[in-house]
């Protein structure tokens, strides 16, 4: 039997938010726009637009974390804070082994099931 639902599977993504009243970009989603005080309605999404956070980023700082718990099949994980070209910033994992502050990286989003509960989407900057 063919599971046709697989054709609906979309690549995982993480969304940024744009306030259509003033144009300000946000991540993660606020309830009130910091620039114009417009309210976001999480149900209707009216007057707000979402867009996938993707593309080139600059690495602002990073760390290599050791002693991971069971569930992680790696010796360490690298994390960093990055800035997208649109000025938004995000925290996420790094997919390079020798990071340097200031280096240019690209954005990938993958599904993670290491922690208990439903799988979640995580950034991997590489």
């Amino acid at each position, binding site marked *: 039997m063919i599971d046709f639902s697989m054709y609906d599977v979309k690549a995982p993504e993480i969304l940024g938010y744009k306030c259509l009243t003033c144009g300000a970009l946000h*991540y*993660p989603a606020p309830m009130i726009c910091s620039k114009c005080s417009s309210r976001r309605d999480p149900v209707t999404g009216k007057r707000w637009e979402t867009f996938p956070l993707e593309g080139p980023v600059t690495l*602002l*700082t*990073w*760390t*290599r*974390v*050791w*002693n*991971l*718990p069971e569930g*992680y099949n790696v010796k360490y*994980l690298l*994390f*960093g*804070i990055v800035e997208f070209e649109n000025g938004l*910033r*995000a*925290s*996420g*994992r790094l997919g390079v082994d020798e990071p340097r*502050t200031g280096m240019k990286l690209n954005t990938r989003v993958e599904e*993670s099931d*290491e*922690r208990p509960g439903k799988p*979640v*989407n*995580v*950034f991997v900057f590489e």
Partner: protein
Amino acid sequence: MTARVGIVGVGHTRFGNSSEYDLADVMAYAATDALIDAGILEQRHEVDQVFVANMASGIFCHQTSVASSLVSRMDMEPVPAELIENGPASGASAVKVAYMAIASGMADVVLVVGGEIMRKLTGWEATDTVATMLHTEAEYNMGLTLPSFGGMFARLYMDKYGCTERDLALIAVKDHDNGALNQYAHVQGTCTIDAIHDNVTASVVNNYVAEPLRMYSTCPVTDGAAALVLVNMDSPKAALFKKKAVRIAGVGSATDTHCVHNRKDPLLLDAVRIAGEKAYKMAGIGPKDISFAELHDAFVILELAISEEVGFFDRGKSYLAVRKGETTIHGSLPINPSGGLKSKGHPVGATGVSQVVELVRQLRGEVEEGRQVRDPKYGMSVNFGGFGNNVVAIICAKD
């Protein structure tokens, strides 16, 4: 006129591993010590209000409503009791709320008890539980923890100001020297700069946790409780107490962005700066008046950054003061004479109360031999919640 609120009783368990015990029992033990110290064990129903500080007993101990449990086992019913939760700054928040309760006139005597038992879980589970205070979608789900943010912050600080891993190790040596003399500290041993940094085997003893932070740059996972009795110094109930009160001169608190990445400059801890400014303003003093401080060194890099944000040192210069020994017990501005979170330990809900217990004991002149700050007038504590998104500063005075 602001209320004159004094501290007339302190209690503290030996921090460490209390995982075999019930959380409410551990808290009640420290609270009973505080009542005894205040001389009102038998008159405990004179307490008008109990505030309990705890971060996550629901997860750590599978136990909730600990305030109700605590008053009952201390035979204090029907005294009102509530829980105050503000992450790892719960303790100082409870002291702040107690101050507000007294200043409002709703209470004249308040018992504050902070406690946490974290070691019923494994070390990682405890780290994971603490990490639930991060932004769920944008931080926690990524696999980030508090040590991760400590590491990323440390890298920024060290790159910008030239602070080295050896400087961080010097703070650990100083904190352990102090903690080894503190009967309540989790880690009672000292360490040398040779063993944790200079020696060729140091990187094995002192391995990386979240680069550039190592084990000796990070606080242990600790259980424990601390308690205070606060009184309105101008109420008739003040006459109940024999010991001279240590006055709470200033209280300030502030918040910052939940996500660290949303701070314009991720090296600035605005909530610390603003909390400090508010506390100074209320006390009518400035950083130069502070005799010693208990700063929230969950990661030793935070001892540096907090000491700059509250104005003890210029930005990027605090580690130079550490090199010169200025922050040791006998230095010009002792920092973390208790051993700090690094050595004394960090039972998250207890820490803010424990810091104030240390302020009181130092100002009374009753700490253990060898770690008494000389003739202190003002002590300051900074209790740091989240990764700096909710901070409470308290200044105590010996009048």
